[in-house]
């Protein structure tokens, strides 16, 4: 069992969860992920390792509630236990001195780029962290990212704070203004990562995206997480999660992700009945 040491809703529907898992924290490297089961009958779900503390033996996840399994997880509180946590999995992100690295992130990706920003800066890069959210109240980890990056830029889709638009719009503007970016890394929803690839392709800037297909075992056995990248079929779990955005077959990935949507909806409909009792109790005492 793995104890949750800290749990808070950092923005509406976005939860920061810190879990005591010393063996994972000891070996975690930027860009890797873990697979977690909330209880013994839960689905195995991959989550990006956003941050880790080797001394305290903890790992930090940023989780959005988007279905049955993530709901079970976010309803837990500090002091609760999760049944299984395995990791670190996946190929660590290549960290070298590239020059200027732009990190574009949205939703859970804002948390996911934190560890990457630190590592890239430590490797001697100039790190530009560009984070997007629908509105001002959906931003989180501002202080952390501001400290980790050389330049920190926030955008809002509705223009309610700072720059109006998407993070990738900022990247595009920088490239159009002749700023030299040696590498772009985008983490967010599939749509956002696809946009990132489309924007940087004409400029020929190497762009990496953290793909999030349906995944089962996470160790290359089942093949559920296959993605078409260029001429190859690769597994996101052992060949990724980072891939070249310019070569990903986005429409295939999207179609594979929604293959079980009917069953996923059914699953949510059934969990809802029992799970959230404590939510109300919590709301009342809050």
């Amino acid at each position: 069992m793995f104890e949750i040491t800290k749990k808070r809703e950092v923005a509406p529907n976005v939860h920061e969860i810190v879990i005591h898992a010393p063996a994972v924290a000891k070996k975690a490297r930027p860009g890797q992920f873990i697979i977690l089961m909330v209880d013994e009958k839960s689905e195995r779900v991959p989550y990006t390792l956003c941050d880790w503390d080797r001394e305290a033996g903890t790992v930090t996840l940023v989780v959005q509630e988007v279905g049955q399994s993530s709901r079970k997880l976010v309803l837990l509180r500090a002091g609760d236990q999760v049944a299984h946590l395995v990791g670190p999995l996946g190929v660590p992100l290549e960290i070298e001195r590239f020059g200027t690295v732009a990190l574009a992130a949205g939703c859970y990706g804002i948390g996911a780029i934190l560890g990457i920003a630190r590592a890239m800066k430590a490797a001697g890069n100039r790190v530009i962290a560009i984070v997007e959210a629908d509105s001002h109240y959906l931003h989180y980890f501002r202080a952390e990212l501001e400290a980790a990056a050389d330049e920190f830029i926030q955008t809002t889709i509705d223009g309610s704070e700072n720059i109006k638009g998407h993070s990738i719009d900022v990247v595009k503007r920088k490239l159009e203004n002749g700023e030299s970016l040696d590498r772009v890394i985008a983490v967010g929803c599939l749509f956002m990562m696809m946009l990132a690839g489309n924007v940087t392709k004409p400029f020929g800037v190497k762009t990496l995206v953290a793909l999030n297909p349906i995944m089962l075992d996470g160790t290359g056995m089942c093949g559920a997480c296959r993605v078409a990248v260029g001429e190859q079929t690769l597994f996101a779990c052992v060949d990724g999660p980072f891939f070249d955005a310019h070569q990903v077959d986005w429409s295939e990935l999207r179609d594979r992700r929604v293959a079980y949507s009917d069953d996923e909806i059914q699953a949510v409909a059934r969990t809802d009945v029992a799970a959230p009792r404590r939510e109300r109790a919590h709301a009342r005492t809050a």
Partner: protein
Amino acid sequence: MQLNIDNQTVTARSGESVLQCASRHGIAIPRLCSHSSLPAFGACRLCIVEIDGMRGTPASCATPAVEGMVVRTNTEALRDLRRGILQLILLEHPSACLVCDKHDLCDEFRPAAAKAGRTTGCHTCNNKAVCDVRVLADELELTDLPVPPVYRNLPLERSDPFIDRDLNLCILCGRCVRICKAQHGRGTIDFVGRGSQTRIGEAFGRSLSEAGCRFCGSCIDVCPTGSLADRYAKWYGAPSRFTATTCTLCDAACAVTVHTTAHERAVAARGVDPRVPICVLGRFAIPEFLNGTRRLKTPQIRVGSRLRDVPWQQALARAAEHLRPFVGDGFALVCDTTNTLEDRYVLYKFTRDVMRSPHYIELQPDARGVSRAGLPDGVRAALLTGPFVDHERLQQLDLLIVQDCYATATSELATVSLPVAVLSEVAGTWVDGDGRMRPLRKACRGPGTAKPDWEIISELARTMGETGFEYESAATIARDIGAVGARLRIRQTEAPIAATDPSRRRTHFRGHCLDDHVGGLSELNGVEPALATAAVGG
């Protein structure tokens, strides 16, 4: 009474508002708080119009139509005003997706919304596919918000049975409050608090169940946003088909419209008559009961101690082979009156003509829907359409065939188990508590290869080499037995008794306890003593 709306001469009925008159003549005026089954309220102000001789821009929903009026509904000035009003409404509603410049591309790439807990934009909203606010924002070409929006951060309310509430999406149109008052004559929910703190809720911070909510679901049906949602149906998006049929969960036989997805899965049911609420069973139980994971999906035959899935042909051949030695008094067939007339006729005919047995036992469910029966002495083989008979008696049988919708301890004992389609999965004729014939129309597909009772029995009879069972549809049987002229109970003078008095609500259908299959019901019944007390004060 004649008036002029947008250069069109129209005739108004007495007592009609400008909005009603315009709608009746196909002139669309934007609105969010007005609803066809509710009186005018004038909360959203989107239906403002210009009327010659009147100051300002009156709300057309609250302005009576008067002889000789000259009304303009869609001038540039009005559109500007409406856009401004909508911008203000959206300041307290997650609205980023409405003003996003990539909104079309996003809709194309990911049409379905993510099943989020908190909705933070259209891409995580259960109402995305059918949202009035989205349509309006498009129509008014909304591209920005005048000042930063506010997220109220109210707790999600997901612990009441059947209904999820995210009041952070609420635009305070008051439709839910008004429909509840109109249909139940009492205020289970109302506006709570003042000014920017106003929200929809129950008195004293109670939950819906504690406040005496009857869970008729009408508030969900009229909500123009995703604030109020049917927990079961919410992520299925827009239904692809609507079928009016009869609810057979009790004798009231309310007409309900069953909503089905493109995969022919029933996801919701609503009362047909908008003035009268239906009961919680009709509104919420049907889809969950039909989509239960323990539904029987495939025919099964006993191999040793276990039941094995087999094709229909094989299961029917096995049943026929086992039944043949029991032709005569040793056989009994037990069903209950939740079956259609067509089913009951074929079941009866099978017992009499094929099995040549007098033991056709048709049970009348009691007030709670429970049907129990004993088997006559000397019966060694039985065909049951549900778990109606005590286990001890069943264990004495030499042959048990069960055709049912759910796996039960009874079907576990069977030599042959056959999956049945029920409720809105079948067509036919049904007799309600007043003895009137009501039509059942097929709205959705049964699970796996499940079939209606009449079809299974007809095929079984044919497998046994009998003639007279060459039925192709329920309609052909209906003609044979003169079951014609069934009409939906579309107009109701009052709500069914089960909607107003929970103690009169059925707990069983076809021998199955509904609580076991419909999650919200067990919760609802768990709090019912409190509910009854609350109702006295309410």
